[in-house]
């Protein structure tokens, strides 16, 4: 095992602790603000995964959009719908035990299935040289994937306008929380 392999495995373990630990804290935390901050931790762990998987551009996009915009949006919404009260009340509804059971069963089924499938892994030569050129990514977005690109810009525009209209106070100027970056 080379040093590089060891570093990668070490990083994978730490990132898994961050992502899964953060995820568990998100769904079980009593304080909603803390839950949102743990979501940021989990998203940062996912960002580390993308770096490990040689998808550097995607990692930066995740940081920019998920942590920089969506998390801020969620934090704003939490602040606007709770006031300054920090309720320590339980955040689970009365079906939580059956939800846990069902979720565990789904997880078991998924894991058993995926460990028993033989995946068509690419050749060693191809595995060593992934296509990470950003210029090619850009060319792909306006070439073969131009239609999804246009559709998603339309979707973002519609979501932006819809969010502003939905959250607008009656007759007054729209609340500050709708400043979506829309990038």
């Amino acid at each position, binding site marked *: 095992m080379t040093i590089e392999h060891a570093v990668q495995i070490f990083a994978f373990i730490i990132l898994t602790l961050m992502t899964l630990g953060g*995820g*568990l804290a998100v769904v079980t935390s009593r304080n*909603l603000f803390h839950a949102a901050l743990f979501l940021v931790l989990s998203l940062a762990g996912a960002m580390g995964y993308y770096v490990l998987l040689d998808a550097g551009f995607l990692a930066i996009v995740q940081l920019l*959009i998920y942590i920089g915009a969506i998390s801020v949006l969620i934090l704003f919404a939490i602040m606007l*719908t709770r006031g300054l009260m920090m309720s320590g009340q339980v955040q689970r509804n009365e079906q939580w035990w059956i939800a846990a059971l069902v*979720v565990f069963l789904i997880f078991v089924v998924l894991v058993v299935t995926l460990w028993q499938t033989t*995946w068509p*892994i690419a050749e060693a030569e191809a595995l060593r040289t992934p296509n990470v050129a950003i210029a090619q990514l850009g060319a792909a977005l306006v070439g073969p994937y131009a239609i999804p690109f246009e559709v998603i810009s339309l979707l973002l525009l519609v979501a932006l306008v*819809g969010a502003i209209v939905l959250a607008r106070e009656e007759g007054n100027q729209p609340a500050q929380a709708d400043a*979506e970056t829309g990038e």
Partner: protein
Amino acid sequence: MAIPLPWWLTVAAALFAIGLYGVLSRRNAIGVLLGIELMLNAANINLVAFWRHITPQALTGQVFAIFVIGIAAAEAAAGLAIIISAYRRRRTVVVDELDTMRW
């Protein structure tokens, strides 16, 4: 690649399961949204892991993942706007209490 594909998929499945638990068991509407974000991230990790191990020469995996992030942004914005506007009307964001279609 030091870490074989099934491990990546297991981690993504675990994250998906955790997110699903959040969606099913949270009382607060924003808590449900947090669970949905976790599930979307799990799907993204799956996509990128598959891209890296099965077709590393193609670009489809990364492009797909970028689009998923864009869609997550749009859905978070619209969902939070709905939650805020529901809060203004009914003064509550507990999902159990948002149970009438008109008021």
